[in-house]
């Protein structure tokens, strides 16, 4: 066993331990802010696994998109919905947890069995290694060009859809007073950005 492969094994063990502990923490921790930060750790260790697999471009994309965008988005959502609420007890919650744990354990056993009994065609072709980024670019602009372009349309649709879904309704009720208020009234009342407007309002 060479030094390089020993280092690789140590890196794999550390990354997978971080990954599993982080994932269990994400699911089980009662405070959701800790869960969100642990999720960032999970994404980073997945990026480390990609580096171990000689995929530097996808590792960089993972860090940029998941840690930089998705995790920050989740943190923003936690800040926007941060009402402390005591969850009401539900009959049979423990039974449900045990049953779903059994189902997930069964799924895990099935997946492990498939992974260890399938005769994989190993060893495959020699990995391209550091040329992976060039190869991905060739793929994206030749045989995967249509999905690549469709992905841009999908992102545009998701962006517009998120804006439409998350904006305030034009006819909504004011949370403080309980009376119906439209977009303009809410904006004027909450955020007086223009000084002239507020001066006119007070002068009236």
């Amino acid at each position, binding site marked *: 066993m060479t030094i390089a*492969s*020993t280092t*690789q094994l140590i890196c794999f063990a550390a990354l*997978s331990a971080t*990954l*599993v502990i982080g*994932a269990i923490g*994400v*699911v089980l921790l009662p405070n*959701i802010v800790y869960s*969100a930060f642990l*999720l960032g750790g999970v994404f980073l260790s997945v990026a480390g*696994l990609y580096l*171990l*697999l*000689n*995929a530097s*471009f*996808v590792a960089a*994309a*993972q860090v940029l998109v*998941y840690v930089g*965008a*998705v995790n920050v*988005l*989740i943190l923003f*959502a936690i800040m*926007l*919905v941060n009402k402390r*609420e005591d*969850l009401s007890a*539900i009959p049979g919650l423990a039974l449900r947890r045990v049953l*779903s*744990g059994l*189902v*997930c*354990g069964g*799924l*895990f056993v099935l*997946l*492990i069995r498939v*992974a260890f009994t399938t005769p*994989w065609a190993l*060893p*495959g*072709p*020699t*990995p*391209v290694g550091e040329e*992976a980024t060039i*190869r*991905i670019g060739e*793929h994206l602009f030749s045989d995967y060009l249509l999905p690549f372009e469709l*992905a841009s349309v999908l992102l545009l649709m*998701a962006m517009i*859809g*998120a*804006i439409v*879904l*998350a904006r305030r309704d034009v006819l909504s009720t004011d949370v403080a007073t309980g009376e119906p208020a439209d977009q303009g009234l809410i904006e004027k009342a909450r955020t007086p950005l223009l000084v002239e407007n507020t001066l006119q309002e007070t002068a009236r």
Partner: protein
Amino acid sequence: MSLDLPTSIPLQAYLALAAVLFCTGVWGLINSRNAVRVLMSIELMLNAVNINLMAFSSYLDGDLIRGQVFAIFVITVAAAEAAVGLAILLSLYRNRETVDMERFNLLRW
């Protein structure tokens, strides 16, 4: 620096790791009461699938790395899913004043 891959870590190690991550995500998806945690569990499952794709791409398809291209598309779709999912969550929170999954029961019979 190029690491010689197939000698040290077996492919099955990556598959087992992805299986652990996926099952954790499924359990969290079923059992979470907080809607934000449900979205986090979905991200965990998508990452598990990505680990599988990358492992297959490196071990079985090393010359044409199609798995990496698929992983990039999965990352794209996951980002779009997170944005739309959190927007739906904000809209739900504005209407129901809660993030408890047990109280989103309008379609329950």
